[in-house]
Structure formats: C-alpha cells, structure tokens
C-alpha cells in the first residue's frame, strides 16, 4: 500500500518526521490514532488548510486508506478542507456570549471585513470561521479566538484593534 516517497511532496520533511514520531507513540497497527496529530501538523505547514493531495500524503505516511483521513479532517471543525485566510477568527455565539453581545460582535466583524461567516477576506488575511460553539470562556463573555489565542470581554472596538494588529 505504501509507495516510495517521491522527492516532490507537499509535506515538509520535518512534518513527515513529526508524523512518524507521533505514530510511533501508538501500538503497531493503531496508527489511526495519530491522524489528528498528523493533520494538525500538515495544516500548520500549509497556510491553515488541508488539500486532498495533502491528506493523501498523510494517509500514505500513516499507511491508512485515504478515506480514513478524509473522515477525520471533515469531522473536526479545527480542520479546514478549503483554502482559507491566514488568520482564523472565531466568535463565540453560544449562550453566555450571546447574552453578552456575541452576536453583535460577530455582525460587526462581518460588516467591517465585508464577508460572512465561513468566508475569507479577498486579501487572504482573515478567515471568519463558522459560528463557534462554546469555547469554555463563559466568565469572559463575549469571547473570540484568534488563531489559537483567547480574547475575552471583547467589544467591537477592541475586536477592530485585534484584527488590525494581525499580519
């Protein structure tokens, strides 16, 4: 099932090594457990999204049928299977944030960026992720997550500042 690794691969050598290392932490034949880790590494090295070709390489690296990798990638909202902007912005609209202005915050960002949730800005800078369910920061509602950082008690003005500060 495993083909020779050609020179032209999408997965960086370092990512391949890290994936193998991750797979090695599970018993033999249980490399399916390493798919999450492998996809995270692959996505980080690819501007925040996973192409079919990239997922195929992950499957090949882990010696799994490609469909088992597609299943995981499409199941978890942390993985994107379409090209998206560099920075991933998600605004919580679950109960606590909703009561504290999460929806208004999201609407503000939509109109400011000129995109709807699930879309990315034309310059490829910002990806406004599908409405996020609770991210467990209710004490600081409303909250938003930018890349992997939490921002709490966010006002529209503060959200603007955060977005402007992104590269």
């Amino acid at each position: 099932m495993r083909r020779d690794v050609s020179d032209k691969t999408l997965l960086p050598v370092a990512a391949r090594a890290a994936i193998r290392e991750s797979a090695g932490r599970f018993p033999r034949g249980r490399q399916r457990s390493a798919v999450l880790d492998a996809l995270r590494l692959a996505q980080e090295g690819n501007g925040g999204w996973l192409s079919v070709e990239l997922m195929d390489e992950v499957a090949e690296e882990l010696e799994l049928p490609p469909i088992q990798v597609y299943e995981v990638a499409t199941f978890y909202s942390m993985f994107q299977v379409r090209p998206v902007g560099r920075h991933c912005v998600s605004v919580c609209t679950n109960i606590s944030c909703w009561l504290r202005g999460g929806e208004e915050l999201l609407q503000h960002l939509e109109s400011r960026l000129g995109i709807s949730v699930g879309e990315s800005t034309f310059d490829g800078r910002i990806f406004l992720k599908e409405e996020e369910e609770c991210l467990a920061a209710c004490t600081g509602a409303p909250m938003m997550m930018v890349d992997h950082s939490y921002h709490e008690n966010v006002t529209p003005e503060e959200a603007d500042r955060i977005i402007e500060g992104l590269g």
Partner: protein
Amino acid sequence: MADNSVRFSVNGQDLEAPAGEMLIAATDRAGIYVPRFCYHPKLSVAANCRMCLVDVAGAPKPMPACALPVAEGMEVETRSDRAIAAQRATMEFLLINHPLDCPVCDQGGECELQDLAMGFGRDISRFSEGKRAVPDPDLGPLVSTDMTRCIHCTRCIRFGEEVAGVQELGATGRSEHMEITTYVERSLKHELSGNVIDVCPVGALNNKPYRFNARAWEMSAHATVAPHDCVGSSLYAHVLRGRVRRIVPRENEAVNETWISDRDRFSCEGLYVRDRLQKPLVRRQGRLIETGWEEALEAAAAGLARVTEERGGQALGALASPSATVEEGSLLRKLMSALGSANVDHRLRQRDFRGTAPAGPAPWLGTRFSDVESLDSLLLVGSDLRSEAPILAHRVRKAAMAGARVSYLDLAEREYLHPIGTGSVQHPRDWARALGQLAGRALRGRRRALWLGGLAMRHPAYAELLEAAAEAAAGAVLGHVTQGGNGAGLHLAGVIPGEANGSGAAGVNAGQMSREALAGMVLMGMEPDLDCVGGAGYAMREADFVLVLNPWASPWLLGNADVVLPIATFLETPGTLVNGQMDWQTFAAAAPPPGLSRPAWKVLRALADCLGLDGFGFADTDQVLADLKQRIERAPAAADPTPRGAAIGSLALDDEDYAGLELPMYSVDGLVRRSAPLQQVAAMRRAA
C-alpha cells in the same frame, strides 16, 4: 452447552448462550425478533442506529441488544412498553431525514427501513422542518447511490474495512452534515464491492444495472450456482416475465457465506445482448442462414458423419467450456466416444499436458473452504487469487488476519489486503527451481497447504512445476484452484482426452487442438479466439467442419462455423457444477432460454438421435447425472497424477511461450465478457 454458558430470560422465555455473546445473536437464534439496522452478523458491532433498544431489568434506560453481552440472570423484555417506546422513538428519529420516495425506490418492497416503519413508525410525521438532501457520489458502474435515503448505519463502511479489506467508503462530516461517500470521486474497485448493495438496509446503495427494472415482489427467486470460478457461490436469480433481472447471494455458510463476487452478481447483464443467438444457423453457399432446429440438427449430424466416414472418428475433436455442466460434458464425451473419437477436453488454456495421466484423480483444492480459515500456512503458486476466485481470496484473507502465514510465488507484485509471510516475484521459468527453498520458508505449522493457481496451470512447463510442487509440499495439502466453474466436474465427467473416456485411444488434448485443428471440431460454450491459448482461433479455421454450440454469435464463430446451435446459459438450463471443494451442486433452470435456443444437454441428445446413436435416451438431466455417477463408480481407482522425472521429458522454451499467462478477471468466459458493467470496470482497471 459449554461450561461458560449463561442463563437469562427474554420475554419470560429461558435462554442459554455463551458468555459474552451479544444479546441480539442469542435472540436471533431463539427466533425472538429484535428490530435492527446497523447490526450485521458478519460485521463488527457499531451500535449506532439504536433500533434494537430493549428493556433490561435493573438498567436505568433501554439498552442496544447488538452491543449488550448476555449475562447470568439477565431479564430482558423486547416488547415491553419501555422497549416499544424506545424503538418507536428511534424510528421517528431515523425517518426525520429519510425521503418518502418509496414508490420510486428500487429497495421498496425489500427495504428494512420500510418494513420496520410499518411495525414501529407513526402514520404521520411530527417533523415539519426541512429535510436534508445529500449529493450522490458516482461509485462506478455497479452501485447506484441515493444518499439522501442513507440512515448512517455504516454497514457499507464496515464491510469495506472488515470484509473486503480496503475501506473505500467513509463517513465524512458530522451530525446533520455526515455523508457516506468516497469524498474524492472514485469508483469502487474491490471485486466484492457489490455486496454493499445487500448490506445497505435502505435504498441508498443499490444495484445500478438493475435500476428501475422490476419490483421485488413481482419477481420469482430461483436458486442457482455461479459458474465463473471454482467457488460455485450459491445464488438466487430473480426472474420477471421470463427474464433474469438480477442476481443476489443465497446464504450458504459452507461456500460463500453471505457474499458473492461482483463477477457472479453482474455477469447476468451479458444474457440479453445484441449478439445473443435466437435461432440456429447453417452455412449455405458460404453464408450462415437462420434455420429451424430440424434443418440445423440434420446439417450438424451430416457434417459430423461426413468427417467420420471420410477421415475416421479420430479426426473429430470437441472442446467444452470449463464452466459447462457435468451433464453437458458427459453427453459431449459420450457423443464423441460413440463417433469413435477420444478427443475431448475442457482445459482450454492449459499449455503443457506432459505427464498428466488422464485417469488421474480430478484436481481440487484439497481443503474445504471453511477449513481454509484455520490453515497455519499457505503458499500460493502462480495464483492471482483475488481475480481467480474472489470469495476464496476472502477466506484466505480471513486466515491471514487470524495469523496464518500466507506466502506467494508469482510473476508480478499484486495488491494483497492482508499480511504476507514470504512473497517472491520471479520469472515463471524459475518457479520450479525456486519452489523447494521457498516452500521451506513459507510452509510452517501443522495445517499447511500449497495451491497451484491459474498461472501455474497455464505454465508452459506445467509438468516440471507440478513435480516440483508435489515435492515442495512435503506433507502439506497440494491443491489446485480449478479453472472455470466446473474444472473438477468436467474431469470427473471424462471431458479429457484418452482412456478416461473409455475409447482406449490416447486422444488429442486442447493444446494440440489449439495448434493444429482436427478435420472436424465441436465447440461448446466457448470462443476459440478468446478462450484458448493464443493462436487457436487461427488453427481451428482450418477444420473442414466446425460445429458450434454457443449462446452468442461472436465474430469468430460467425466467420468460421458451419453450423451454429444456440444453447442456454447456466441460468437457463438445469445442471450440476462441481466446485473446488468437490461439492456436486445441482440446480434447476431459472429462466427460459431466449428465442429458439435450448439447453445444451437437450441439443446433444437430439444430435445423437439424428446421428442414430444409441444410449442417449435420457428424459432429464437427473438421468444424465445418474448415468455419469454409475460410470464413475465403475472406473478404476485413480492413479497418481504427478509426473516423475525423465518420464515427462524436457522442453525448450523461449520468452514467447511465457507470454499471456495472465487471465483478467472479467475475461474468463463469454457471459462475463458480454456484461457491459463488468467490462466498464475492467476498462477502468486497465486505465488505472
């Protein structure tokens, strides 16, 4: 029952089952019905449909019977208010997104969801929101998709992963966005993939060529046996208004369990094709003219009589398809014998006949199919088993997954879907030499087997290979993956040249007839240009008289036959096939043959009558079979078939002799070659 069994009660009935068995298996055995969708006895437990919820005393909520191991003293109610309420709630939930398109759904009438909705569903839906719609992936020419109907039981996914050995379908997305798909558009490639049609409890995955052909309740089911490989899978042919509409598996644990290969399922698409013969043909002034039976049989008899009178009976030769029934084979042998010819054969693609004693025992697998699963080691010599006999390959895979050491000696790398002990790829000329050493490494444990596959039996120096294999086996079972659907049966029926047909003469074998045709040839159920070793099509043109019995008119047959008699396929004739584990499997005709075509056994009987031959007064195939069995009982004990040393001589072979050893899965016989969906799959495989 064994010591580890436990006692429990279901609906007040006392039951006993091995500890650890799932409750649903125990209730099924006891005939207590528990509704289910995702549970399948041949697949792992998923417990995701929740239809089998039952009421267990002491449990805080209903439990799924498919994932509930039986325990001592357990008290279960399957029909209590709580169980019924849970089952009804599950059904309501499953129907939320299911379209109500039963009137246009092929599954209608044989649908598990429809049946259970009758038993557990409400007559109106409380769901007023929009239903979801799911795009249908194109899974290729065999399986149609209507994924909006899918209830996510995941049987098809588990079938791929656990039975086929390669997961082609998966569940992408989650919750309301979950879809059963290949994600990237690709066709199902596995040779057993058609079984997802049967495991799918709804109309999401269906038989594509059969689409909109018939309703399940209109058709009659006829038990029959598949003729395309040595497994002889048990089938039902579903027939409507005299035509076979589709083939489904017939459960037979000893042979095919509940599965069948795609070849067995979809070959029936080759039945009613444009070149199916409707009437006999006779050559007049160089052209084949349609005639009635009387004229055609007279022309056939006259042709055979002329050759016999002018050149003697030994100038006649007959070849039968390796999938012909034993009755057809037996009558053909009798006919030739009565005309004074010992030249009959069914081993159409065999190249080397040296040392094969005609009176030797019939080749077979040497092992019951079910015992294959408990082998310790197996060495496959020259066998593309997944293509030769997909169901047998599945048994081998089960053995390998359970720890058996499966090794191979082959001419090419193939995709094996299980662990391999020792794999050796060598030019076939080196096989005999390599075998001894390889067998030493490959064959271990108590239950060992060495099988010779189709490539081995087509080997140009088969005699040496067989001798080497017999030596290398050294106590292991030496088996043959017999070719066609009746390789063993036709051997027993005496469709091999020489002594075995009782004429005493040595006889001319299929290889010789392929190189140098005799003056008169009788070809039954085969096409020389496609079914024999290369060149047979050219050699047999030289025969003065060619009599063809075949269901179809191929260009070769139309160009070279003098008389063409249209015969029935396996679905249209009663008969018997002997499979690789020596089961004599007798079946009845499922449908009438089209047009004027007739079962071959009747045609041969009529031909014998026209020739004025005695001993053909059989009223039915049972009498033909009884006559053959008597003959087998009278025959002397079989001699050791293995050729030895100098007795077989030696051959000078060049590369050309080794050409074309492969036999693609969907080229094995006329019916398969005419099945459009299988040929589409074959074309995709070639392109891949």
